[in-house]
């Protein structure tokens, strides 16, 4: 009975794994590797790569610069309505990307909430690279904020108090104590947000369109090339797989690496000969 169940569970695990892995592997099997690399050299793929890297980099830096102090402010404080605030931050995570795109359009679009004023000032955002950046930042922000808030919540408050009694001004407490202590969590949050931003599709399509060389990011190029040149679509897909795998592996390995460091120092600390 017990053996039968164990066998069933192992079979279920195998099935689930195969279901996830086989399609990913299939991306690489349809076309020879040489053709994939060649496909990445086409102008459609190159343009999309440039647009993606440029918009993601700008959006990501902006998210980190604004999100990190924001997460510190929210993570280190207890106030009325905090649960509501956290729910608002998480809300975009559960929205379909297309809904996010429409929301951005009716906010920043020419006929949108802020778009009218901006349009009068000669600023027109929709269907430009700025729109791509906004769309990417919009999907990155909740993901990054949520994890960064948790990282700052995990910092031992008395260490921050200790810094204050040593005359550290609020910025120094943040930069010298809180930030390094939260760095591990912030790094992981940043990496996941970046990956999510690079993969953004729906919001970008609705808000920024899919104009090659301007607003067509890698995921949009996959969709655009799907009916034109499948090789390019497959090549970009393979690129995402390689990037994603490298990212996830790095996230798994880096905490393990730091843990082994701390174990090593703990062991050396307990033997007097190496402690000094």
């Amino acid at each position: 009975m017990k053996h039968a169940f164990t066998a069933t569970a192992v079979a279920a695990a195998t099935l689930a794994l195969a279901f996830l892995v086989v399609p990913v592997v299939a991306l690489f099997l349809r076309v020879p590797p040489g053709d994939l690399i060649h496909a990445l050299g086409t102008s459609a793929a190159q343009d999309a790569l440039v647009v993606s890297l440029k918009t993601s980099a700008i959006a990501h830096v902006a998210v980190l610069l604004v999100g990190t102090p924001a997460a510190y402010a929210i993570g280190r404080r207890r106030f009325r309505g905090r649960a509501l605030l956290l729910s608002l931050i998480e809300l975009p995570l559960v929205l379909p990307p297309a809904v996010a795109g429409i929301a951005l359009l009716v906010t920043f679009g020419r006929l949108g909430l802020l778009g009218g004023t901006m349009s009068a000032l000669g600023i027109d955002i929709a269907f430009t690279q700025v729109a791509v950046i906004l769309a990417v930042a919009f999907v990155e922000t909740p993901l990054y904020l949520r994890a960064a808030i948790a990282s700052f919540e995990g910092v031992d408050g008395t260490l921050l108090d200790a810094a204050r009694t040593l005359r550290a001004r609020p910025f120094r407490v943040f930069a010298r104590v809180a930030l390094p202590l939260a760095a591990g969590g912030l790094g992981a949050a940043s990496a996941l947000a970046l990956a999510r931003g690079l993969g953004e599709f729906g919001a970008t399509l609705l808000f920024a369109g899919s104009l090659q060389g301007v607003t067509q990011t890698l995921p949009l190029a996959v969709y655009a090339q799907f009916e034109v040149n499948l090789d390019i679509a497959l090549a970009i897909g393979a690129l995402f797989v390689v990037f994603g795998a490298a990212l996830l592996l790095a996230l798994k390995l880096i905490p393990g690496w730091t843990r082994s460091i701390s174990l090593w120092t703990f062991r050396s600390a307990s033997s007097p000969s190496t402690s000094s």
Partner: protein
Amino acid sequence: MALVGPSGAGKTTVLRALAGLRRARGRISVDGHAWLDSARGLDLPAEERSVGLVFEEYDLVPHLSVRKNVEFGRKGGASLLERFGLAPLADAKPRELSGGERQRVALARALAPDPAVLLLDEPLSALDAHTRGEVRTELQQLLREADRPTLVVTHDFEDAATLATQVGVLVQGRLRQLGTPAELVASPADPFVASLTGANVLRGRARRAHELTELELPTGELIRSTDPAEGEAVAIVYPWEVTLSRTPPDDSAQNHITGVVASLVPVGNRVRARVGPLTAEITNDSSERLGLQVGGTAVASFKATATRLLPESLSR
């Protein structure tokens, strides 16, 4: 000065309020500088108060070296590292240090900006029992050298008595008694202060008996004291005032209680013996000479003149 009291008495709250890490009402002024004056709406933030705080767990910044930790408040702490014997450990990370070393780093760090006031929160409670005594002596020396107003918070009277010249007893947010350690031992204000300073506290009913007072314990035994008391009262006897013998001695002591030896705990060159309701502190020599054994019987004797009486109403 030391504040001593049970956990939950508000000791740490007092420290945090002084340091500006917790909202408080009232007035705090140091060397003529007001830090807090609720009436005037003045409340300096922690970073603007000249205070060095040593936390219970020392709370060194884990990713900074000993040198960086000490220099966090002010650059150029080389002489402090030297003075605290930390120079060889300057590049070590906090997790590589022993408890005593961490404490020295925390103290050096707190003193680096030359604070007007030094605050220590349970400085010895994070240490294990066998390093504690050593670190306490070391800390006493370092505090003497630091030479500035210092407030130590602890739950241990012995720590307080070693580290401070004035000891305040804090219970449930109220200061029960303030005095030198000797004064607290000689005339504890209430039974709680007495038991905190290590005294035996025996409860019973008091009545006049000739020139003395007799306290009848619930077990029926009588204790005599030279102090006056009436009704519900407690007798206070210090362990070092109690002598032990195998048979009731023919001596001047008025009080003899025969009981079973419940425990014999060696403390340095002494033995703490629990006999019936009393703890007696005698030398190792005496303990061996008497052949005391757990489970055997012994007579505990103490003088009526060494027995303080306090009304029960003070204990609450």
